[in-house]
């Protein structure tokens, strides 16, 4: 198990190093994800222990946003007089973005023959 945890850290490390060296506008961990994905594609299967380790990390993914989320307390004052404008913009824009993206994706996926039956 430890070996796959190390592998995950290693992928992130390579990703971070690459971003630091090239200034690419992508976070290191996202590049690490691409790297791990490439590794899995070459291997052709998911090692059982890797599945366990990644499953443990991902099953608590939303917990990991709590420390950064709590940081809201420090920066709320930055909104200055724009609190209402920003709140309205965030709620409408976020809900509409999710609806529009979902509709677009669903419409385009359904057009393909053969993918209709297992869509739901």
């Amino acid at each position, binding site marked *: 198990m430890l070996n796959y945890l190390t592998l995950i850290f290693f992928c992130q490390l390579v990703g971070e190093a690459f971003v630091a060296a090239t200034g690419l506008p992508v976070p290191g*961990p996202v590049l690490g994800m*691409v790297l791990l994905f490439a590794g899995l594609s070459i291997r052709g299967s998911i090692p059982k222990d890797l599945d366990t380790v990644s499953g443990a990390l991902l099953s608590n993914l939303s917990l990991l*946003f709590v*420390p950064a989320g709590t940081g809201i307390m420090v920066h709320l004052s930055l909104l200055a007089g724009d609190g209402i404008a920003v709140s309205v913009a965030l709620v409408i824009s976020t809900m509409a973005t999710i*609806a529009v993206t*979902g509709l677009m*994706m669903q419409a385009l996926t359904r057009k393909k023959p053969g993918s209709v039956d297992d869509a739901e």
Partner: protein
Amino acid sequence: MPNELQSELQDVWVYLSASPLLHLTMTLAAYQAGMWIYKRGGMNPLLNPVLFAVVMLVAILMLTGTSYETFFEGAQFVHFLLGPATVSLAVPLYRQFHRVRESALAIAVSLFTGSAFAATSAMGISWLLGASHRTIISIGPKSVTAPVAMGISDSLGGLPSLTAVLVIATGILGAALGPLALNLAGVKDWAARGFAMGTGAHGIGTARALQVNEVAGAFAGLAMGLNALATAILLPLAWAIFR
């Protein structure tokens, strides 16, 4: 009155509040309390556990006069795992990749639409409501994962720390209200639902998608990564042309 006991308790509190263990434990406990309510409520997205935990923790920190820096000394151990967890998204993505490959064109078009819509709608609405120039720029990359969003904001002349707050708020709002928006729009396909959550609400939306369905989770993780890249390239370009 046992003054001695009181001062002893005071000493214990001073000792504990200086140790990272207190705030690490608090973070885990607040989240688990939120998770308990979330599960009791049939995973209703409005009962989002991140939202609950953040509200609880902010309240406790303010009541006890604890600074965020002190809190973060303990909470950083949880925060640190965010990177490895992001790398781990490769596993569900690999498992669902046959579906991803089938819908490559749909993904490209939806990504472009979602990325452009997220930025223009947020900037447009805040502009209409009279927000300051700095706020309008800072809200542009709000649907993108925090480190990238802060970089984009900085390059456009926004305020990265304000962007970080808006990104987190977007993630929580998206996780709580996104499923409702998808239901209203009649989006039933799991891949489309996940892709929309990852595009509109980055990692926090992805976390919600993963809790509900693995296909949705895989597409959400993919969308989060792609949207970071797309917005980082498109938004500064669009800004240079249309400003």
